[in-house]
C-alpha cells in the first residue's frame, strides 16, 4: 500500500514538474527586446500589412537586436475592436504599438490603455507636417495627444455614369437636395427595374458603415446633430432624426435601395464594390473616399474601367441649405500601449511606420486622404486616382463622430432605429421615440438635450 501511495505521489510530482514547465516567459526571453504590433488585416485590406512589413524590415535593420513581432488580426472593424480591447485588458497580451480607430481613442485613454505621447512628439520633427484637424483626432479630454493619425477619409456619393446616362441623367450628376436624389433614383428605377438605383446602408449588419455612410449624412444635412458639443449632451427628440429615418423608409419602401434582407447582411458592401458597381447593377451609393482602393490595380475587386465609369458627388443637405454638402470623417491612428516596457523604442517604431515614405505608400494604396503636408504635396498621391481632389475638398464640410465612451452604444441605438424602419417593424416616429428612450437609458436623462 505504501509503495502504491509513493508511486501516486511521484506521478503527481512529475505532473507538477511538467505543468510548471509550461508557464510562459522565462526571464531570459524577456530581456531580448521585442515589440509587439497589433493591427487589422482582411482579404480586402492589406495596405496596412504591407506598410508594417516594410517598417519592420527598416526598423530591425536600423536597431540591431530588436525583433518586431507583427500580429495582424483578421476581422471586420467591429471584431478587430473587440479583439484589441480584450488584448489590451491584460498586461501579458497588451501590444506595444497598435492600430486604433479614432473614435475609440478617448475611451481607451479613459481605460488607461494608451500611453501619452506629448514628450515623445516634441522630439519628432515630422510632427509639424501633420495637419491640425487630424492631430485633434488623437487628443483626449485632458488635452494630451495619445495617438498619431495614419490618414483620414471623407464620404460622398459614388455613382456609375453608365447607369445614370442610361436613365437620361446628365453627367456630372450633382444632386442639390434629398428630393433630387429621389427623383434621379425613381428615373433609374423606371428605366431599368433590375438596377438598384440608390443604396444607403441601414441596419445593424453593416455596423458603423450604416451610420458613417448613410444615416449621419442625412442627419447632419437637416441641421440637427447627434451630440451637442457645447453643452456636451446628446440630442433627443429632433425633427431631423425622424426626417432622416423617413428618407430611408422612402428609399427602401419604393425599392430604390437593396432589399432589407440584403441590407442586413454584413457582407453587403462587398457586393457593392465587387459586383453591383462593376456590373452596372447599382446607380449610386454613399461610400468613403477610400472606394478606389478596392478597384485600383492590386485592390480586392480590380476594375480597370472604374476611372471612366465612376463619378463622385458631395452628399447634399436636405433642401440644399448652406453649406450645401455633408460629409463624415473617421480615420485610424497608431498608438503606443500604456504598459509597454520599451516606450522609447515603441515610439521610434511608430515614427518609422509613419515616415514620409511609408505614409505615402499606405495613403496611396488604401486611398486615404493625406494628413502629412509632404505626402499631400506629392504628385504620386495627387495623381493616384481622378477622385483625390474631389474627396479631399470635402474636408471643408466634414464632421467627426463624438468620440466619447458612450458612443458605441449610441451608434448601435441609431443602427437599431434604421433597422426597425427599413424592415417596417416601426414607423420613423416610433423608431425615433425608441431611440430617444434608448439614449436616455444609456447616458441618463441629465445628459440629453431636446433640440
Amino acid at each position: 500500500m505504501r509503495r502504491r501511495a509513493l508511486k501516486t505521489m511521484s506521478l503527481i510530482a512529475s505532473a507538477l514538474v511538467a505543468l510548471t514547465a509550461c508557464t510562459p516567459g522565462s526571464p531570459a526571453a524577456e530581456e531580448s527586446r521585442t515589440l509587439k504590433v497589433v493591427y487589422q488585416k482582411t482579404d480586402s485590406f492589406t495596405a496596412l500589412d504591407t506598410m508594417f512589413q516594410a517598417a519592420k524590415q527598416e526598423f530591425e535593420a536600423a536597431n540591431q537586436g530588436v525583433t518586431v513581432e507583427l500580429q495582424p488580426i483578421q476581422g471586420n472593424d467591429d471584431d478587430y475592436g473587440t479583439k484589441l480591447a480584450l488584448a489590451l485588458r491584460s498586461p501579458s497580451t497588451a501590444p506595444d504599438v497598435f492600430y486604433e480607430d479614432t473614435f475609440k481613442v478617448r475611451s481607451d485613454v479613459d481605460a488607461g490603455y494608451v500611453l501619452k505621447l506629448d514628450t515623445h512628439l516634441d522630439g519628432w520633427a515630422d510632427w509639424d507636417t501633420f495637419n491640425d484637424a487630424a492631430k485633434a483626432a488623437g487628443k483626449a479630454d485632458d488635452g494630451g495627444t495619445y495617438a498619431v493619425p495614419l490618414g483620414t477619409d471623407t464620404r460622398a456619393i459614388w455613382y456609375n455614369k453608365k447607369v445614370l446616362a442610361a436613365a437620361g441623367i446628365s453627367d456630372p450628376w450633382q444632386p442639390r437636395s434629398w428630393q433630387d436624389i429621389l427623383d434621379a433614383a425613381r428615373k433609374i428605377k423606371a428605366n431599368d427595374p433590375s438596377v438598384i438605383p440608390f443604396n444607403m446602408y441601414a441596419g445593424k449588419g453593416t455596423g458603423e458603415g450604416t451610420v458613417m455612410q448613410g444615416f449621419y449624412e442625412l442627419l447632419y444635412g437637416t441641421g440637427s446633430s447627434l451630440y451637442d458639443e457645447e453643452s456636451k449632451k446628446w440630442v433627443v427628440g429632433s425633427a431631423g432624426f425622424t426626417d432622416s429615418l423617413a428618407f430611408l423608409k422612402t428609399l427602401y419602401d419604393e425599392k430604390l435601395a437593396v432589399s432589407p434582407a440584403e441590407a442586413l447582411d454584413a457582407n453587403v458592401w462587398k457586393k457593392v464594390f465587387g459586383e453591383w458597381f462593376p456590373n452596372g447593377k447599382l446607380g449610386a451609393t454613399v461610400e468613403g473616399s477610400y472606394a478606389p482602393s478596392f478597384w485600383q490595380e492590386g485592390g480586392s475587386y480590380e476594375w480597370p474601367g472604374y476611372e471612366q465609369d465612376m463619378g463622385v458627388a458631395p452628399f447634399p443637405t436636405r433642401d440644399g441649405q448652406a453649406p450645401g454638402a455633408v460629409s463624415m470623417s473617421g480615420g485610424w491612428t497608431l498608438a503606443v500601449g500604456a504598459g509597454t516596457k520599451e516606450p522609447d523604442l515603441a515610439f521610434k517604431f511608430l515614427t518609422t511606420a509613419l515616415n514620409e515614405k511609408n505614409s505615402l505608400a499606405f495613403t496611396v494604396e488604401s486611398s486615404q486622404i493625406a494628413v502629412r503636408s509632404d505626402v499631400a504635396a506629392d504628385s504620386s498621391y495627387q495623381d493616384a486616382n481622378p477622385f483625390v481632389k474631389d474627396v479631399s475638398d470635402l474636408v471643408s464640410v466634414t464632421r467627426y463622430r463624438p468620440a466619447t465612451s458612450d458612443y458605441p452604444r449610441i451608434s448601435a441605438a441609431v443602427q437599431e432605429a434604421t433597422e426597425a424602419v427599413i424592415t417596417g417593424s416601426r414607423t420613423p416616429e416610433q423608431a425615433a421615440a425608441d431611440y430617444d428612450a434608448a439614449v436616455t437609458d444609456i447616458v441618463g436623462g441629465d445628459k440629453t438635450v431636446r433640440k
Partner: protein
Amino acid sequence: MPVSHRTRQSLRYLPVLPAILLLLVFLAGPVLWAFQASLTNAGLTGRSARNPEWVGLENYQRLLADPAFPLSLALTVLFVGGSAVLGQNLLGLAIAVLMRRARPAVSSLVGTAVVAAWVLPEIVAAFAAYAYFSRDGTLNQLMGGLGLAQADWLYAYPMVAIMLANVWRGTAFSMLVYRAALNDVPAEVTEAAQMDGARGWQRLVFITLPMIRGSIATNLMLITLQTLAVFTLIWVMTAGGPANASTTLPVLAYQEAFKFGDIGYGTAVASVLIIIGGVFGAAYIRLLREPRP
C-alpha cells in the same frame, strides 16, 4: 513505519485531486468570476475598464427591465425546446429504432450521413448551414429547381433556419446514445411481450422506452446543456438578426459584453443562462431518480 488508517483514507483521494483541481480552476473559476463581474460595472474600455465599481444587483434589475430580455429568453426556450428536446431527441430516437430494423448497409449509410454533420467543427458546420439557407444557397436552388417559391430563410424565418441547422448538426449524438441504449434492452423481454401479443408501437412505448429511461434523461440533459450554449452556429448564420429575431441568450451576452463593451451586463446575462442550465439539470436529475411508474 505503518501508515495510519486516516492517512490511507485521505491518500485514497490523491489520484482524483488533479481532476478536482482542474475542474475548480477551469469550471468553477470562470463561473465564479462571471458571477462576481456581473455585480460590477466592468467594461471593455472607458473609465470602468480601469476601476470597475461594485453595483450590486443593478445589472440584474436592468436586465429585467430590458425589452430585449424576455424576447431573448423566449427564443432560447424555443430554440432548446424545438431543436434539442423535440428535434434532436425524437429524431435521434427514431433513427436509432429504425436502424435496428434496416439492412446493415442502409443502417451504416444512414449512420455515416448523420454522424458526418456531427464530426464537423462547429464553425465549418455553421458556414455549411449558412451556405445552405442563404439567399443564393442550396435550399433555394433546390426549391427553384422543383418550381417552388423561394424564400430568404435567414431573414424571413431565422429561427426555423437555425433550429433546423441545430437539429442537423446535433441529432447524431442522440442517435448514438439511443443505439447504445437499445442494444442493452434484453431481447427476451421484447420477445416475451411479442408472445403476449404486443404490437410494435406498444412494445416501444411500454417496454423499450421505460427500460432506456435512464439513457433518455442523460441524453436530454446533455443535449439541453449543449444547445443552451450554442453560439457559433447562430452568430455565423444570422448574428442574432434581423431585428433581434434570433438573439438567444448567448448571443445577447456576447453583444452586450463585447460589442457594447459592457462586461458587467454581459456576464449578468451569462449568469442567468447558467441558472437556467442548472434548473434544467436539476429537473433531469430528478427524472433519473424517480421510481418507475
